[in-house]
């Protein structure tokens, strides 16, 4: 364990000095996990890889500011989440007009026969496929609140929406995912 810490410190030191080999090593070590995080937040794999690249550029550029107050992976994860959000903001503007009409989810779910057969335990890929059907704003809110434990107040601040919007989008996203991912026999 001690060796591991020393290892990451030397790796970060090399990255701070602009050493390409160290940067490559950091990318190889943390890239897959960060791409998984990006994939949860982005609507498609291409956007996720864009976010991955943008995120690593930010990491390398701001590595000097990392003081070791939190675990490096935690610090890095925050950067990638923010990058994914920024990427989304560039493409879309989050607003309440994005809220779908009541009943729309049900129609979407019932029209997808594959999804009907999902249920826990499911693979991450299946879960992401279910998330892909969510509006992007809902998806962000759900990820931030359910998986990253951000408070609605913070989410509202990050996404530039109201706290109420965050709550309502989260509730709708959760209902949608439950309908898709929880098998009917368990639900009933």
């Amino acid at each position, binding site marked *: 364990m001690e060796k591991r810490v020393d290892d990451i410190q030397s790796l970060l030191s090399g990255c701070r000095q602009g050493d*390409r080999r160290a940067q490559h090593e950091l990318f190889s070590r943390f890239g897959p*996990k960060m791409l*998984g995080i990006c994939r949860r937040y982005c609507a498609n794999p291409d956007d996720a890889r864009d976010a991955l*690249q943008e995120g690593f*550029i930010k990491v390398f550029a701001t590595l000097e500011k990392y003081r070791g107050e939190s675990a490096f992976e935690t610090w890095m994860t925050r950067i990638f989440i923010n990058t994914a959000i920024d990427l989304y903001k560039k493409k879309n503007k989050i607003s309440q007009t994005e809220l779908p009409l009541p009943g729309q989810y049900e129609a979407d779910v019932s029209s997808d026969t594959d999804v009907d057969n999902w249920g826990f335990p499911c*693979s991450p890929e299946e879960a992401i496929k279910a998330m892909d059907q969510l509006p992007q704003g809902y998806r962000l809110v759900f990820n931030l609140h*359910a998986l990253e434990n951000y408070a609605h107040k913070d989410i509202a601040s990050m996404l530039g929406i109201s706290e109420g919007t965050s709550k309502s989008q989260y509730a709708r996203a959760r209902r949608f995912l*439950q309908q898709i991912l*929880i098998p009917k026999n368990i639900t009933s």
Partner: protein
Amino acid sequence: MSQEHKDIEHLLRETFKGYQEPVFESDWEQLERALPRENHRHRFLWAFWLSLPVAVGIAFWLFQPNAIVQYSKSVEKTLSQAQGKEINPSDVNQMPADDGISYEKITPPSRNRSQATASGTSEKRLEKSAYRRTDVVQSRNGSKGESQNWSSAGNNSLGGSTGQINNELREFKGEIPNLSGRSFHQIVFNYSRSKAAKLVFGNYRRALDGWRHFRGPEVWMIAGVQFLSSAAMNVADKDEWKGKGLSRSRLQQGLIREIAAGISIPFGLSSLQVGLGESQILKPMRQHWTVKTRMVIDSIPYRNMPGDTLFWIPVRFADTLVDVVTEFSEKRLIIPFRFNQNFPICAKFGLNFQVGGQLGILQSMKATIPSPYTDYTWSQVRSGMAGTAQTNAPVGLVDAKNHLRSRIDVQLGTGAYWRFNRNLTVKTNVMRTSGLNPLTRNGEKYHQWGGQLMFMYQW
């Protein structure tokens, strides 16, 4: 709310726990193209700063100063007078045709006169003795003296004396044992993380390591360039260099050229130093600062005795600054090595422990003369501590501030030096200093580390 509704977050967390997606080499290549080019600036800076002292050292190695000519003149003249001979002034000004240089041991007359024999060699090592270089007198025996092994004074443990000694010269030198310190050029490259990189070249006459019998005044000069990059410049360390007022300035960034000169008068194991210097700070953003370092009266000890522990109280008067270090101790261990006679090597391992208190009263003055074209500021500042805020003042306004300061710090250091040959010595030093200034508002703490690379050319 049903159980599964409550647990959807938990179930998804479990699903995504450790979730990864594969990245490919193409992803890295794409990222690499987007990254800024590899930063070689730090390497360039190191190479740049290191190349300067090396270049100057080589230059001095190749072009020996003419001072040797005058030096040999006085020696030969006195030698001839000692032997009751009249000399032709034109003879004493002549340098040997080539490198006819020898080194002879200088010993106190009462003890060493008996060793002056007619001719031959001497292998005997003499304690508390010193060697002085001079040019071989060709007219004495018609042939140039053979190359002599050289060593500095006995305490630096660089080895004893071997090889032939010009005995007649040695006898003569024995009559004037109290020679002043030898002249040498010294090039110092200082680097400190929180301070500055500094290159200093100086021509000094002062004691060398272990030279206890130093007498006579010394004249020193510093011409150097500093690059300032930190606000921690108010932390001044103590060393033998003068003209250090600028190292206490609270400056953010800038380029300094400085020149200073002075005289040192030995006083027991210490010396009093009086100097006059001027430094110009070329700050970015169109501001130029000129700082005069005036009347530095400084008492420093010769603490070059290996293995000695010295406690000393230097007192400095620099304008209105009173700077008293109450206690200082230093313990060093010098381990000599020698590959052969011409290339000895000596490593120094030292532990410096320093507890000091500094009480200062500062008055700073500045005058700002606005220019319609450029914003020039002339500042006459004698700063010495933290919190010497300098702001532009209207024309003619003099701003004076008084400060108190105390400091306590601990310094650890190690170093080594290599005496490549009898002329050139390279010294290195690395130090780590931690300190506290309890009199500042927030109890200023500082940590710094630095290194020193010193080239010394002596004759």
